[in-house]
């Protein structure tokens, strides 16, 4: 922070430039300063980016190293790359089953949170019904509850209805926590779509739900993508509820499986890291494919009502 003051050279305003003439792109770059400040910016960003990716980089590198190299070499690039750790993880553990469990829970949560969330978001966006702000506010407050507080009674409740130790327990829990985000996010997007558009559809004889499904949702697709990615990440990455609710190995999600691996493999880091890489891969691919839409969606949604 204080560094900035030292690093940025005092900028001499160019007298010839009229501020109006320099629009969006120019204006940002003008305040960018000279080559020194640019180099310093890059150095800072490289350090921050390295910090951000270091654990993943290290995990990927170790996953491809043979066991004795892991203990002796610090090189990022394996000297004798091997797929042995991946083979062990896929063939000798329940990893593929856990992968399937995680995928089912995450896809279920994602699709339901889009459906339930767009219904709720649509109601919030188009009607000023009684209890509207209560509904919206309770969704926001949900985010502040400690999971531990809910986990204990939920555990007792789910046990009573024989849902404990099933993937259903995770699905309904993740869905509820994803709803706060999806209702508000989609409401923000729906607000930006003029009422006239759906009114035209309504006059053409469509009912409200049809108008929502065929007209509004396709127009709000960046919001839908953002909600999808968020819900998927939430359920794919969640650990605490899974750890409390799931006991049997065959119902593990990947997070639980990973945690179990530290006990099972203790210091066989190669195997653990190979499993880690496989666990991360789907969300990482998903994320980088949608990165542009997503950052735009988050930035837009974060500043909307």
């Amino acid at each position, binding site marked *: 922070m204080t560094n900035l003051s030292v690093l940025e050279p005092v900028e001499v305003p160019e007298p010839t430039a009229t501020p109006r003439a320099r629009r969006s792109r120019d204006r940002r770059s003008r305040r960018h300063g000279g080559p020194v400040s640019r180099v310093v910016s890059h150095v800072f960003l490289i350090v921050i980016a390295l910090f951000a990716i270091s654990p993943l980089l290290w995990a990927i590198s170790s996953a491809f190293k043979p066991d004795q190299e892991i203990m002796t070499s610090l090189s990022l690039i394996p000297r004798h790359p091997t797929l042995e750790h991946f083979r062990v993880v896929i063939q000798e553990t329940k990893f593929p089953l856990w992968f399937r469990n995680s995928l089912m829970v995450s896809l279920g949560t994602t699709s339901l949170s889009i459906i339930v969330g767009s219904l709720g978001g649509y109601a919030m966006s188009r009607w000023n019904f009684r209890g509207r702000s209560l509904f919206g506010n309770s969704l926001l407050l949900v985010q502040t509850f400690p999971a531990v507080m809910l986990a204990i*009674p939920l555990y007792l409740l789910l046990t009573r209805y024989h849902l404990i130790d099933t993937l259903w327990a995770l699905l309904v829990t993740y869905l509820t926590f994803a709803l706060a985000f999806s209702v508000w996010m989609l409401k923000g997007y729906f607000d930006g779509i003029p009422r006239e558009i759906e009114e035209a559809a309504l006059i053409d004889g469509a009912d409200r739900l049809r108008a929502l499904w065929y007209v509004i949702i396709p127009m709000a697709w960046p919001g839908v993508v953002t909600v999808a990615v968020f819900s998927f990440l939430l359920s794919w990455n969640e650990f605490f509820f899974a750890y409390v609710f799931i006991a049997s190995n065959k119902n593990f999600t990947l997070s639980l499986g990973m945690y179990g691996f530290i006990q099972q493999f203790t210091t066989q880091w190669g195997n653990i890291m190979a499993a880690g890489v496989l666990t991360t891969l789907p969300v990482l691919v998903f994320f980088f494919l949608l990165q542009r839409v997503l950052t735009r969606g988050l930035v837009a949604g974060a500043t909307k009502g």
Partner: protein
Amino acid sequence: MTDIADRVQTRPPTARRRRDLLPYWLIAPSLVFLAAIIGYPLVVGLQEGFKYHNRLQPWLTRFNGLENYVKAFGDHEVWVALKVSFVMVGGIVVFSYLLGLLAGVLLDRKFAFRGVYRALILVPWVVPPVVSYISWQWMLNDQSGFIDHVLLQLGIIDKPILWLARPTLAMWSLIIVGVWSRFPFMMITVLAALSNVPEELADAASIDGANRWQVFRHITFPLILPVTIVALLLQAIWTFNDFALPFVLTGGGPANKTTPLVLLSYREAFQRFNIGYGTSLAVISMVLMLILGVLYFRLQRKQGVYA
């Protein structure tokens, strides 16, 4: 005549009434899940907090009024855990705010590789926490960890640093890893806030001879402060409630020196089977976070921000 008048008068209200019910049908599915997964457990949890309830002796379950809370008040473990919680939250929130601010401000301008940096910095936000905490745990390991190895080879230290085995260092490790996992969110919020700052203001100031730091200090920062404070509060709440970070990275050790209140509450309820007492600790966490929550909420409404 009266017939038509009736019809004219009654028609719109019925139509409106029918329409009025639709939003309730639309929020009904959300309400069902909220009631089942949040509402009901909340009510049960509040009751449990006033009970003696041990899973090993279920027949002894009874209401015991405020006994759990009185016990918590005199429990040394609880005070240690509270201190751990506050140090952890304070450290993680402050440093992730500063790092997120720095990254956000640096990335707010157009230049080469901007998209690449932004994508790489968002990685911690995407990687499953259990995977990254395990990877960090290994990197910080004093037997075979990457960090100690490098420091040893560079000759900076002559014997391994026990990152996770010494109480103070374990707390710092927790904070560093916490900052790592939380600063990308701060960066996104800062970027979003910066995109709403009218350029004309900063432009005018820099034409008047203010340097970049002065522009940031006196114009940009005050403008983005309210939005980022909302995000900071939310981060504080999430960090306080975070279970996986201390549980996976340090396991709460050494000697409970990294066991925050939520982890202690979990231990009481699920490992020592004191459901009643464990829940009362969770209720204390909830009340503490509710105070922050109300604050977050007020600011959120005022800013119209959902972050």
